[in-house]
């Protein structure tokens, strides 16, 4: 039984250009203690998926017309449920730690707020707890920095503060939305090490949203690839890497020489990312796909098990055989 289970999730935004379907029937699971990477080009709906799980899809523009999200057998889309779990059970770390921390409050207070508001801790207790957390995430001279403001920290240290805040109440699921993208390359590895270390210590599940395949390679058990709001492929990391069953995935993977090799970013596949307001019929990847045929234009492919592969490895493509044989 998965800790988090997302089924046929749809998230729409009302924009001036019309209704944008940012997430279009996405389904995936995250097991307890598992690390799952959510990959995809910019605009593929990764962040919106995370927002839906957290119950923080921006209102009133955004709405969830259909689908289900269950966490530990609780319906996260039922009124008030996500609100009760946010911060306590499910926590989130954002991409840009500078804009994600409140500029007018001291970092100690921002971390301590978790204990004060959720646990009714006193000011002193919250401060002591914040200090412990700051030490734990490796902020040097933590007791001196407790009363500093976010702008007095470096990018990496700010992200440590964010992580401390997210971990305050020992959540069972941490969603990290591109936690290293805004950071210097040298710092990126440190933050990833910190995240994986803490994940092991806490035994929590980690959903790692990223562009950076190098980041994923070291840590993820499983990957979920998103395209135009849909999950197009999912499976164990090595399996997907070595036997990608979707042309989009193989396009992304083609850029990395080896799993353990030098870090590489997702190079854009030829063609431009889809216009969510004007998606092609059938498979939305069709305009960029070399295997596209009539069936692809008529029938929208659904996730299914790939021929000769494990049942956990699935792709949403009408012609996975072509992809599988072509690349490898």
């Amino acid at each position, binding site marked *: 039984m998965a800790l988090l289970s997302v089924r046929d999730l749809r998230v729409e935004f009302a924009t001036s250009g019309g209704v944008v379907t940012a997430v279009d029937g996405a389904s995936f699971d995250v097991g307890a203690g598992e690390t799952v990477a959510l990959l995809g080009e910019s605009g593929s709906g990764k962040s919106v998926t995370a927002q839906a799980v*957290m119950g923080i899809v921006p209102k009133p523009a955004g709405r969830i017309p259909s689908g289900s999200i269950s966490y530990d057998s609780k319906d996260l889309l039922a009124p008030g449920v996500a609100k009760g779990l946010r911060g306590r059970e499910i926590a989130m770390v*954002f991409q840009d730690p500078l804009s994600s921390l409140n500029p007018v409050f001291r970092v100690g207070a921002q971390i301590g707020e978790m204990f004060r508001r959720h646990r009714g801790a006193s000011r002193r207790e919250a401060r002591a707890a914040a200090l412990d957390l700051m030490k734990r995430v490796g902020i040097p001279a933590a007791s001196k920095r407790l009363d500093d403001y976010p702008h007095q920290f470096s990018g990496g240290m700010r992200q440590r503060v964010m992580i401390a805040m997210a971990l305050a109440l020992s959540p069972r699921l941490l969603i990290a939305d591109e936690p290293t993208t805004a950071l210097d390359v040298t710092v990126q590895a440190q933050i990833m090490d910190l995240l994986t270390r803490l994940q092991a210590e806490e035994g929590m599940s980690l959903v790692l949203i990223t562009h950076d395949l190098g980041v994923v390679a070291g840590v993820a058990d499983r990957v979920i690839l998103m395209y135009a709001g849909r999950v197009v492929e999912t499976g164990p990391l090595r399996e997907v890497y070595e036997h990608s069953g979707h042309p989009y995935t193989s396009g992304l993977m083609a850029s990395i020489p080896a799993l353990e090799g030098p870090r590489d970013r997702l190079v854009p596949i030829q063609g431009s990312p889809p216009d969510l307001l004007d998606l092609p019929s059938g498979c939305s990847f069709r305009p960029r796909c070399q295997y596209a045929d009539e069936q692809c234009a008529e029938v929208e492919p659904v996730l299914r098990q790939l021929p000769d592969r494990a049942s956990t490895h699935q792709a949403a493509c009408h012609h996975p055989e072509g992809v599988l044989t072509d690349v490898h």
Partner: protein
Amino acid sequence: MGAYVVRRLFFSLFVLWGAVTIIFVVLRLVPGDPAYIMLGPDADQAQVAALRAQLGLDQSLIQQYATYLANVVHLDFGESFRLNADSMSLVLQRVPATIQLATTALLLSLLIGLPLGVIAALRAHSWVDRAISVFSLMGQSTPSFWLGIVLILVFARGLKVLPSAGSGSWAHLVLPTITLALPFLAILVRLTRSGLLEVVHEGYVHTARAKGLGEGIVVLVHAMRNALIPIVTVVGLQFGALLGGTVIVETVFAWPGVGRLLIDSIGRRDYGVVQASILLVATIFVLINLLVDLLYGFLDPRVRLAGD
């Protein structure tokens, strides 16, 4: 920080000097000789000349200005031509009434303007927001003298529930306070709305939600605390307009404050009182701005530390 305060104080003195100088020049540019006005139309040339000499008006403008500045430094604005008393003392007697009126108007504006602005922002583009927008637009564009007269007609003459003019009780304060507060309140509503709308999509507001905080805390603590930074700045600047508004409101409601004294004194070319009033009002304005600056530093730690 120390250097900053010194610089600020120096600038404040400069502003005050500017205010007293401008009023000196303006008073001497407007037509009408105080000696004539004081003595009335029947006075002869000799009487006028004598009074002019007594008032120092026969000296050159430069000489008058030098004497004036020297006296200003000692807060000596001479005798009131009209009331035969020390000008500054006359003005100071009126200060409490004006402060009382300005303070109640400020409080009323904050008490109503901030919540209305927050509601408008949270319900942006809804009919509630539109209704509040219309209200604040009307508030900003309604002339105080007109509103004052309408309020008097309705509540004093018509319903007879409130006194139309004068002072002495809390009831007397109601209509002048509303009249003075309305334009300020209206600006506050708009500022609060736009200030809050500007920050509600900031990352730290998302973070606050992701932390599982209640929507009240998210908006009123995490968002509002940031939105207040620009609001406070503009409120400080707009406070000058509020002080200016007291002149009209005090006249309409016969409120015995500095504003009404100023109007009466201008009419009679009572230079001393006019100059003393202006200096006093300018001083209050400068002090408020200093206060706002300090508050700004308190509200925005980034500014506070940059000033170090």
